[in-house]
């Protein structure tokens, strides 16, 4: 990752699009500079030989118990009361009381 490290302005725009972010003309060069600085620091990880080292996603995996995906940490599958719909909809930007309303989905 270090050799060709160098996030271009085009990379910044592509990643922003993937992340649903719209950057202003002033933000783009600043983000490019910062991403390059941070990725330059992250490149240190290449010094380490990690061949054969298992990747760790969760702490429980290292403790040989808890969250192993065998279902021990899952609760019983029972119907329980949920948060009241009206209370949820009270915080919605736009709603008809039953559904969230959004602008046009299909763009033509």
């Amino acid at each position, binding site marked *: 990752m270090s050799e060709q490290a160098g996030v271009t302005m085009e990379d910044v725009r592509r990643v922003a699009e*993937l992340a649903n972010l*719209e950057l202003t003309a002033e933000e783009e060069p600043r983000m490019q500079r910062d991403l390059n600085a941070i990725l330059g620091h992250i490149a240190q*990880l290449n010094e380490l030989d990690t061949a054969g080292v298992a990747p760790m996603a969760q*702490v429980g995996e290292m403790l040989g118990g808890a969250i192993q995906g065998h279902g021990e940490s899952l609760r019983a599958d029972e119907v329980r009361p949920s948060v009241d719909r009206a209370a949820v909809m009270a915080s919605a930007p736009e709603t008809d009381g039953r559904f969230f309303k959004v602008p046009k989905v299909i763009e033509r």
Partner: protein
Amino acid sequence: MEVESLTIDAARSAMAEGTVTATALAEMHYDRIAAEDGRINSFLSLSRERAMAQAEKIDRMAAKGEPLPVMAGVPVGIKDVLAMQGAPATAGSLILKGYWPPYDATAVAKLEAAGAILLGKLNCDEFAMGSSNENSAYGPVLNPKALGRVPGGSSGGSAAAVAADFAVATLGSDTGGSIRQPAAFCGVVGVLPTYGRVSRYGLIAFASSLDRVGPFAKNVKDAATVLQVIAGKDVMDATSSDRPVEDYAGGLTKPVEGLRVGVPQEYFGEGLDPEIRSAIEGVLDGLKTAGCVVKPVSLPHTRYAIPTYYVIATAEASSNLSRFDGVRFGLRAEEAKTLSAMFRKTRDAGFGAEVKRRILLGTYALSAGYYDAYYRKAQQVRTLLTRDFLAAFAEVDVLVAPVTPTPAFKLGEKTDDPVKMYLEDIYSVAASLAGVCGVSVPCGETREGLPIGVQVMGRHFDEAVMLRVAQAVETARG
């Protein structure tokens, strides 16, 4: 009754004896907030209605002579990344504007069930991303011990509110140092519980494999009491552990004699402030005097903790923060004609620069062609970092180290250089990645009068021993 020295035990016994009411305690704290928080900016909102209803309930119990719960009448504050009914939730961001959560986070509900009075919500870096509290959309928090300096972050408001005696205890969250670092900067106790010890249900997620909820308090005993109240299995958080919760506060009086204290050599290298170094050496001398066996240990991968953290935390953040899209709660950009334009415009208007920076970095690290080089690599190094701790804890019972390389820095000092700001977390992120517990305890002051904290780290789920050593540090300081 002095607000300045009020502890949990003092509040509870004063109420049981009838020398003070919960209502009066709540009012005294609200008065102090009204008088002094204008310049510190620690509270974002006050939940007076809910607080006074709870205070009256406690007062009725006390009047009837009923046994009072452990935190009866104790005024507390909640970092504004935890859901709490009766107050807006902002996460320090504009994007949640107008959002009032319709439920309580488990830790918040447990505090109230234990008798605590919920005063309000505390300022923090936006989505808990920051080390100085300068990333809040609602303005920075100032350090009550030195007003031109930052209180640390991201739980800056939680640390400052305890340091300024606006609350007896508060809740914060720690993803890479966000409880321990502000505790050190403000001269209070802050606990990072083991990953899985405290439910995160109702915590606005930043990096789910790292996020933890923990307490701030004026002393180790109060911090232990709050931890005991909020810890435990919760069916609403599958990562919470069902290991029994120990009597942390009750165990603090046990002797520390014979405990093995490891001093990780990598935490005392170049860049450590000499006054902090000498304060920590003083702590180690005190522990020796108390009968601990102090010996050097090595955590060889320490220098890779920051780069590892900034890949994993930002990758998880880019995923977690995709839910803020203007559809279900908070801000929505009104001018957008289509759904996708609405997403982009809402997120552009709602997120601050640091949050955007981290979302972009995380999205980049997860994107096609870079996943193995960044994300998978970081996960592998995380394994190595965790093995470091497991190996050290085979030889010693706790680790003692600095919390931060420097004392509280000045506002604006590091805002232009993200890497410089990230390096602030150099002594805190490794414990976050490994999932072990940690606590920051005040252990001195610089010549300028800035607080210095020492970090005690414990084995996974061994908060009891970690807090016992923290208590010994506090006692030795006198």
